Every structure is written in structure tokens, then in C-alpha cells.
């Protein structure tokens, strides 16, 4: 029995100390024996004749489905579910924007400038701010709700024209996003579609729905509602928690769900609730991506009531085990079920705002449009009451953890601003070889690929050593912040070229874009680079990696990357290796279609070599210098 290790050694040490608490790090060992059929994707549970498993002795399911059909079906189902998750987020964000526009919601828009830009991009007009906001929301919702045979209209306004042409040629322009998900479920039911290639194309369409709507439009609308990211320095890690405050942990992906709570806590009345219980006030503690979003936009909203980002998905159980969290609010994933017994033992109250993440022991208090401030007040009161009821009865033990000088607030716009108004300086550095290329290190953390954040950290270290600039979004960046990669001192780990750039611009070698939703922002940066250089995306010396991808959403994100024509590295393969056809299409043939391909490599050094080789090949094709 060995506890799973983290690249974040402070976290490992803390878990060691809290050995009486059962966390995912302990359960990993109990679950270490994997089912190979599941890993290969060749177990089908779709009908009552099953489950069917493919072996040389039983090469087909009862229905006749081959390994290829089972694997493709399984992958499309997973991508559809992942896409559905992000579409849920964009839908609720658009509905909030709409509620604000109609005056139903008391939430105030924090970035009207961002609204103008978004409306312009989407080709939406409107006399007043609110009218414009309403029209933007309507345009997004109309696309989401379209039937499958009607192409979504905003796709061509969001995508690079060259990309849109490629997609059109390949039949990848998606119909209504929710209908695409719906029909993916139809297709993957039993005795329906068994053509692996058709299913993989559907995955790519869902990737486009995910990327342009689930990611980008969510970000852009949340920028309007919650304020735009600004580059600044912040603290991350468990040390952001001050036990003298009423502490509310936040888990989820929808920043604007917290609009009412933040707005309320920003008022003296809000803080007073805590003060009367003897605390110094009430603060939010970031966990998972919604915390990243709060950190990203702290300049525009909630800066005073947001203590900081504590850690990524798999740190939540440990954070609750510190005893310093009075209330945990969840509104989406990554809500780990394992937190429940720990919360019970720490008398931490669990509240969920959306039944999509309801837990057995959490109280469901639905977030209703128009009632955001009431909700905020109710949550603040619950937190303060819980503080009063539990403090004294629990031991609080917060480790010294994290970094105080994390550079945050990077977005497609704040980056351009930092560079003086355009991406030209970066382009010049790439062209002259000071920076060989750019790698997006994206997505989740898992405990599987070497341990918590292990591969993410090792791969990032290898890439920056090779003078490859790293842009990170999602739980990867949560981990990278807590291991020092987003602090200026990390320049010491970079190669000479990248280090010089870091020194010149005062940035770390890893740029922290925040939540996984900001994978969309990184892809906008890629779009902008392609536009500025007059190239298509597959030509750029840019790669992406989701080294420690965890769930279905990551697969949907990955499909967007593939549709964009990027080389996507994964440390662990999705459950596809039982199918030679699916494996070959994704790792080879797709490059002829969209320009993208999947590259699987568990070893971080080998992965970095492979990614560097891709970058070098693209440089060579562009006639750029290829440093030895």
C-alpha cells in the first residue's frame, strides 16, 4: 500500500501527516488493478445481450459489433458527454446574461467594453448596453438550440476563415450544438451507427461546438458579466486560507453563478455577517476551475473577497482536511464525491447550486436567474452560521504551501496589452528562434500518469528547457502554480532563449491563463498568431498537450484541438487502443484531413522530444531557422 504522490511535495507531505483522512491519493492504490477491456475500449454494455468483451476467442459482440465499432461508439459517447458538460455551462451563462439584459437579474455587468467587442465579433447590434447584451445572449442561445440540420451561425464569425473552409469541406460545420450531442447519443446506441470514421467526424463536430461555444463564448460572456482579466501577481496554495476568516470553498466552472454572492460579499453588509460571528470577514477560497476564473478576473470582480486559488481538482479533499473551510459551494465539476466524509468529519457544510453536481450529503439550493443577490445573502449567512457552529470543535491545520508571486490574469487580450498592443514581439521571437515555438499545456490533473501533476510538471520542465514557451489553462496550471512554474523565478529552469525573454518582459516561462475554459483563450491566441502570420493553424510551430487528461470534457476539448489542426499530446491514450482503425485515424490519418493528430507518450522526456520534433518540422516547413 503506497499513497499516490504529487509533484507538489508540500501537498504530499500534508497528506502524509493527515494519514487518518481517506483521499483519492489513497484510493488510487485500492483501484490500481485496472480492467484491460475497459482500457482498450472493447467492453460494450449497451444492451441486455451484453456486456460483450472482445477477445481473439470472441472477436465480435453479440450484435456483431467489432472492436472498431465498440471503441468508436465509446469514444463518441464520451466526447458527447464532455461536450454536453461545457454546453451546459455556456447555456447557463447565456441565460444569465439574458436575465441581466431583461432586468430580471440584479447582477451588474462589469465590462461594457468587452460587450461591445463581443457584439461586434458576433455581428450583433443593439442600442443600449442591455439590449446588446440581450441580443448576444439570444444569438448564442439560438445557435445552441438549433436543430441538427441547421448550421450554427456564429461558427464562421468565431473561427479563422481558413479553418472554417476546411471544416466546411470536411462536413464538420456543426448543426445546433445540443442537437449534435443528442444525435451523438442516438448514433452510439446499440444497433445504430457502427462506422468508426463517421463517429470520429462527429467527435470533431462536437469538438467545434465545445471549443467555440462551451469554451470561448462562455469566457467572453463571463468577461462581460464578471470583468476582464488583467495581469497581476497573486498568491496561490493552501496558504491563501486565513483561519480568522469565514472561509467558503468554491468548486465548479461557472464564474457568473457566483456573481450574486461576490456582489453581496463586496458590500459591508455581507462582511458584517462574518464580523458579528467573531471572524475578520468572509472570503472565497478558489478550488478547481471556478477558482481559477476568480483569480483570473480578480482585478475586475471580487478582488477584495477572493483569498486566492488553493489548488486544482485533486487538492480539494486535502483542503477540507485542513479544517479551515466552513462551507463548500459546488456548481459543476470537479466535485469529488470523496470530499463528503471528510466534510462530515470537519463539520464543513456542503451546498450545491445546480443539481448536476448534487452530492448525497450536500444541500441543493438552486441558483435561480433573478434571485442572485438573495442567494448570495443566504450562502453568506449559512457560511457565517457554520463558522460559528463548528469553530472550536475542529482542529485547524493549514500547511505553509504555495507561492506568493504567481503571475495571473493572462488572457488573449491582456497578453497583447502586455506586449504593447500586438503579438508581433512574440512572432519575432519565434521567427528568430529565441523561442522555438509554443506549447499549450492544458486540461486536467489525474493521479494516473505518474502521480498527481507529475507528468504535467516533468513535461513542462522539459519544454521550457528547450526554449518552448508554455501557455497553460485548467488544472494543469493549478498544479504548475503550486510548483513554482508560474512565478518569475521559474525562468531559471528555462533554456537561455526563453529565460532572456522572461527577464525582458518580467514574465514566467509558463503563462497562466486560468481555468480549463481558458483553453479557448489559448486557442484564440493561436488563431491570432495564424492571422498575424498569414498562415493556417497546422502550419504554426505550436503544439498542445493534455498530459494528465482526466475526464470526458478533456476529450471534447481535445477534439477541438484536433479540429483546429493541432498536434495533441496525451500521456495516456483514451480508451481506443482496442481498435486499430480508430487509433490509426487519430494518430495518423487525421493529419491529412484537419492537420491535427494525437501523439501518445507517457514518458515526459520522450514526449518533449516528440513535441519538439513536431515544432521543428513546422519551423522547417516555414523556412524558419531550425536551431540545433
Amino acid at each position, binding site marked *: 500500500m503506497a499513497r499516490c504522490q504529487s509533484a507538489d511535495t508540500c501537498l504530499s507531505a500534508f497528506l502524509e501527516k493527515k494519514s487518518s483522512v481517506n483521499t483519492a491519493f489513497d484510493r488510487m492504490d485500492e483501484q490500481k488493478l485496472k480492467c484491460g477491456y475497459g482500457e482498450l475500449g472493447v467492453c460494450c454494455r449497451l444492451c441486455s445481450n451484453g456486456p460483450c468483451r472482445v477477445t481473439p*476467442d*470472441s*472477436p*465480435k459482440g453479440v450484435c*456483431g459489433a467489432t472492436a472498431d465499432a465498440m471503441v468508436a461508439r465509446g469514444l463518441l459517447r464520451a466526447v458527447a458527454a464532455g461536450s454536453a458538460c461545457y454546453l451546459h455551462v455556456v447555456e447557463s451563462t447565456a441565460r444569465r446574461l439574458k436575465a441581466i439584459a431583461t432586468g430580471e437579474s440584479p447582477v451588474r455587468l462589469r465590462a461594457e467594453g468587452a460587450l461591445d467587442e463581443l457584439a461586434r465579433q458576433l455581428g450583433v447590434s443593439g442600442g443600449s448596453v442591455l439590449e446588446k447584451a440581450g441580443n448576444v445572449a439570444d444569438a448564442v442561445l439560438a445557435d445552441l438550440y438549433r436543430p441538427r440540420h441547421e448550421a450554427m451561425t456564429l461558427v464562421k464569425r468565431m473561427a479563422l476563415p481558413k479553418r472554417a473552409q476546411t471544416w466546411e469541406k470536411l462536413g464538420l460545420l456543426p448543426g445546433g450544438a445540443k442537437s449534435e450531442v443528442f444525435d451523438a447519443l442516438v448514433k452510439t446506441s446499440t444497433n445504430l451507427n457502427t462506422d468508426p470514421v463517421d463517429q470520429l467526424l462527429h467527435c470533431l463536430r462536437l469538438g467545434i461546438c465545445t471549443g467555440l461555444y462551451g469554451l470561448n463564448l462562455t469566457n467572453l460572456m463571463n468577461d462581460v458579466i464578471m470583468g476582464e482579466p488583467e495581469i497581476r501577481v497573486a498568491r496561490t496554495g493552501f496558504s491563501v486560507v486565513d483561519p480568522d476568516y469565514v472561509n467558503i470553498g468554491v468548486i465548479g466552472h461557472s464564474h457568473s453563478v457566483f456573481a450574486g454572492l461576490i456582489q453581496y460579499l463586496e458590500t459591508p453588509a455581507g462582511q458584517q455577517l462574518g464580523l458579528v460571528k467573531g471572524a475578520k470577514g468572509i472570503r472565497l477560497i478558489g478550488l478547481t476551475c471556478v477558482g481559477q476564473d476568480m483569480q483570473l478576473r480578480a482585478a475586475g470582480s471580487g478582488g477584495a473577497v477572493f483569498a486566492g486559488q488553493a489548488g486544482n481538482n485533486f487538492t480539494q479533499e486535502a483542503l477540507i482536511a485542513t479544517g479551515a473551510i466552513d462551507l463548500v459551494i459546488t456548481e459543476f465539476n470537479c466535485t469529488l464525491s470523496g470530499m463528503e466524509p471528510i466534510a462530515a468529519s470537519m463539520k464543513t457544510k456542503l451546498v450545491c447550486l445546480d443539481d448536476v453536481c448534487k452530492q448525497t450529503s450536500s444541500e441543493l439550493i438552486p441558483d435561480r436567474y433573478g434571485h442572485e443577490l438573495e442567494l448570495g445573502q443566504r450562502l453568506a449567512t449559512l457560511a457565517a452560521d457554520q463558522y460559528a457552529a463548528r469553530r472550536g470543535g475542529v482542529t485547524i491545520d493549514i500547511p505553509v504551501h504555495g507561492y506568493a508571486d504567481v503571475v495571473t490574469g493572462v488572457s488573449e487580450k491582456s497578453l497583447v496589452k502586455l506586449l504593447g498592443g500586438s503579438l508581433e514581439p512574440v512572432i519575432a521571437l519565434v521567427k528568430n528562434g529565441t523561442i522555438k515555438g509554443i506549447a499549450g499545456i492544458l486540461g486536467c490533473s489525474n493521479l494516473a500518469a505518474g502521480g498527481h501533476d507529475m507528468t504535467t510538471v516533468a513535461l513542462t520542465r522539459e519544454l521550457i528547457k528547450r526554449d518552448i514557451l508554455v501557455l497553460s489553462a485548467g488544472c494543469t496550471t493549478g498544479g504548475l502554480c503550486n510548483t513554482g512554474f508560474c512565478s518569475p523565478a521559474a525562468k531559471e529552469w528555462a533554456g537561455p532563449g526563453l529565460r532572456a525573454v522572461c527577464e525582458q518582459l518580467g514574465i514566467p516561462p509558463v503563462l497562466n491563463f486560468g481555468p480549463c475554459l481558458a483553453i479557448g483563450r489559448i486557442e484564440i491566441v493561436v488563431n491570432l498568431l495564424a492571422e498575424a502570420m498569414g498562415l493556417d493553424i497546422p502550419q504554426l510551430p505550436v503544439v498542445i498537450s493534455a498530459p494528465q487528461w482526466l475526464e470526458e470534457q478533456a476529450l471534447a476539448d481535445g477534439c477541438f484541438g484536433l479540429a483546429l489542426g493541432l498536434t495533441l499530446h496525451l500521456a495516456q491514450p483514451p480508451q481506443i487502443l482496442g481498435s486499430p482503425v480508430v487509433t490509426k485515424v487519430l494518430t495518423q490519418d487525421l493529419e491529412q484531413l484537419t492537420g491535427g493528430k494525437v501523439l501518445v507518450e507517457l514518458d515526459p522526456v520522450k514526449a518533449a522530444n516528440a513535441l519538439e520534433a513536431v515544432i521543428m518540422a513546422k519551423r522547417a516547413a516555414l523556412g524558419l531557422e531550425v536551431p540545433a
Partner: protein
Amino acid sequence: MNYVIIGGSAASTAAAREIRQRDPGGRIRLFTRDPAFYSRCQLHLLASGHRQVAQANFLPHAWAERFRIEVFHDDAVTGIDTGQQRVRTSAGREAAYDRLLIATGARTALPPVAGLAGSRTFGFRDLADAEALRAALPGGGRLVIIGAGLVGCELAAELARDGHRVSLVEMAPHPLPLQLEAETGALAASLLSAAGIDLHCQDRVARVERDAAGLPVAVHLASGTALPADLMVVAAGVKANTELATGVGITTNRGILIDRQCRTNLPAIFAAGDVTESEDVIVHQIMPSAIWPAAVRQGQVAGAVMAGDTDSLARNTGLRASVSLCGTSVVAIGPVNQATADHWTKRVYRYRNSRGHRCVKIFFTDGCRLKAAILWGEITNAGVYGEAIINGRDIHDEQIVMPDLDGARRGIAELSIR
């Protein structure tokens, strides 16, 4: 103790090994007419040249040294003196024995057909036969194989695969008449024909036409068909090598009669393998058992008993065959053809497995007992059926038609053989 073993094949070597394991000090001498140890079952591979003699050795490396067996190759025993308890050999050796094993096997039986005996007619039992055929093949002529039993079919398929022009003649209505019934027999016929073999069933060789030099010209069949022939291989039955035994008062019928301890009617003399006749446990008849595993098992029992131990032929049968016909695996167990005429129930299960292979399973049952089975195309678990047949295990009717084992396996987990 002096042991003399006549023969250098399946039964004889198995006996030698069993003796040595029980009698570390005994002297074991083994005389064989063969020039080397080789597996007869691979003769077709030697004839086609796909295997060499050295590869066909079925014994472990340094077998004779390891078990301290004195082996005399190319040395046939020419006579037994039962009074003196000694044997004489063609090389002029004499060897005294306390225990003697006769495991001389069988040889090709030439049917009494006019013109058959003569040049370019080969038997197919010994290395010499395979080598002679191999030497004659490059002539590129027409080959007629007489007899579509296991040996004839395997040889025909092997040579046709290499592009030789092969005709195969069989008296019965279909190939492998002892192993297959009509339906699977027809499948076998179509497989062989598809492999390019010119198959003539339900026909008989009436005479062989030879030219003035005595070389074959054509094989004339009873039906009137004439098959042009340059080479002929006879694979239409064998005759046990009982000559040594008959002269000295050992009881023989089609073979040397042995009991369950492999004893002949003479006290110090044992026999095993294709030279014998013994009681078959499936049909309860005294009959020859012309298969390798039976010869090995009889050799083992003979060896153990010769060395003073006890053992018994509890599971003795020759009614089992496994054959690969042009890539299709077939196993037949039990008296499948006797069954058709009998009061047994015949159940046929035809299917195509998901690898695309055509498969047939045929079961013959007597009440709830499995009596015989033919597995065509998919032979995994054949031994489990064999076990049920040999042990007279109960089978549940509704289960036997399933492609799987179910009934046949009932209780096998707890079963221990021997």
C-alpha cells in the same frame, strides 16, 4: 534385469523411459530397423521437404544418454528364442532378456491390385518411403494416392499445397470414412477438391497399367475412369508387424493380443502400439489402436509392468483423430460411423463463428451418454468431449446442442484422471 525392446518409435521409447524411471540399474537395449528416431506422423512433411529428419525427432535432446538406453539403429530383430530368452538381430547381435517388449508397429498393406506392385509405387509408413517419394517428386508427374484415410488425405493436401498434381482414390462415399459421417465427409470432399485435388470417392483401383519398361502409365478405376499416373502412393490400410511373434507361439489376430497390462500370452513378453490388438474402452471391442497417443500409453503401461510396477490401460482407445484439412481443423472421437447405423441419436449443430469460419459439431448420444463427436472447424475443448466419451459421462440433452461445453464439462473441475 535385462530389458530388450524391439522398435524405436512411440510405444518402444515410452516403455524404455518408464522402465528406467523404475529400475535405475537395469540394462535396457532397444533395437530398431529405423536409421534414426523420427515421428512417423510427420512423414508427409518430410516427403514434401517442409521438415528435415532431424527436426522430426520426437525425443528430448540426448534422450538415450539421459535414460541410459543402449540404442541400436538400423538393426532389425530377426528372431526370438523364447526358451533361451534371447533375440537375434540382422547385424548379428544377440541379446538376452528377462523382459521383452515387441513394439514393431505396422507397415503398409498393398491391396491385391493387378500391376500395383512394381516400380514407382510407394508405401507410406517409414522414413525410407518418404525419402523415396521425395526423390521421385521433382519429376513433376501425376501422383495417385490410393486411400483417403488420415494418411492419404494429409499427404494429398500437403503435396497439393506445393502445386503437385494429385489424385486421391477412396472406396467409401467420402474421405476419412472412419472419422467422418456423410455431412462432414461431404465438407471434407469439397475442401480437398477446392485445394486442387482430383478426388474419386466410391471408386476402387481396378488395375494399374504399365508400359513395356514397367513404368506406370495409368490407374484404372472400377468405374472405368483412367487416371494418368507417374507415381502411386498406397495409403489404404496397414498390416501389423506380427511376424516375430507368430512363429514363437504368441497369440495374434490382426495384431498381437494384449491384456490391460500389455502382457502377451507368454510370461516375459509384452507388446504395445500398432502391432497389438487390445480392448477399446469406448466400444468394448478387441481391436487395433492405430494412433500415436494410444501407442505411447500402451508403451508406458508395458514399461511400468515390465519393471515390476502396476499400471493399467484404463482409458485405452484408438478411436480418436485430429486432422488439419487444408487449414480446417477437425477432431473426431468415438465410433462415428458405427453410430450412424446404430440406435444412437445424432445431433448436428451448424454455425459460422465470428472469425468467419464454418463450423459443425456433431454429437452422437445414447440416452444421456455422449458416445461420439465430430468437431469441424472449431476444435477448442475437443478433449473435454473426449473425456466425456471415454468416461461415459452423463450429458444433459438440451445442453449438448449448444456450441459450448456445458454438459460435457459437468464435474470436470473435480475430475482427476488416472
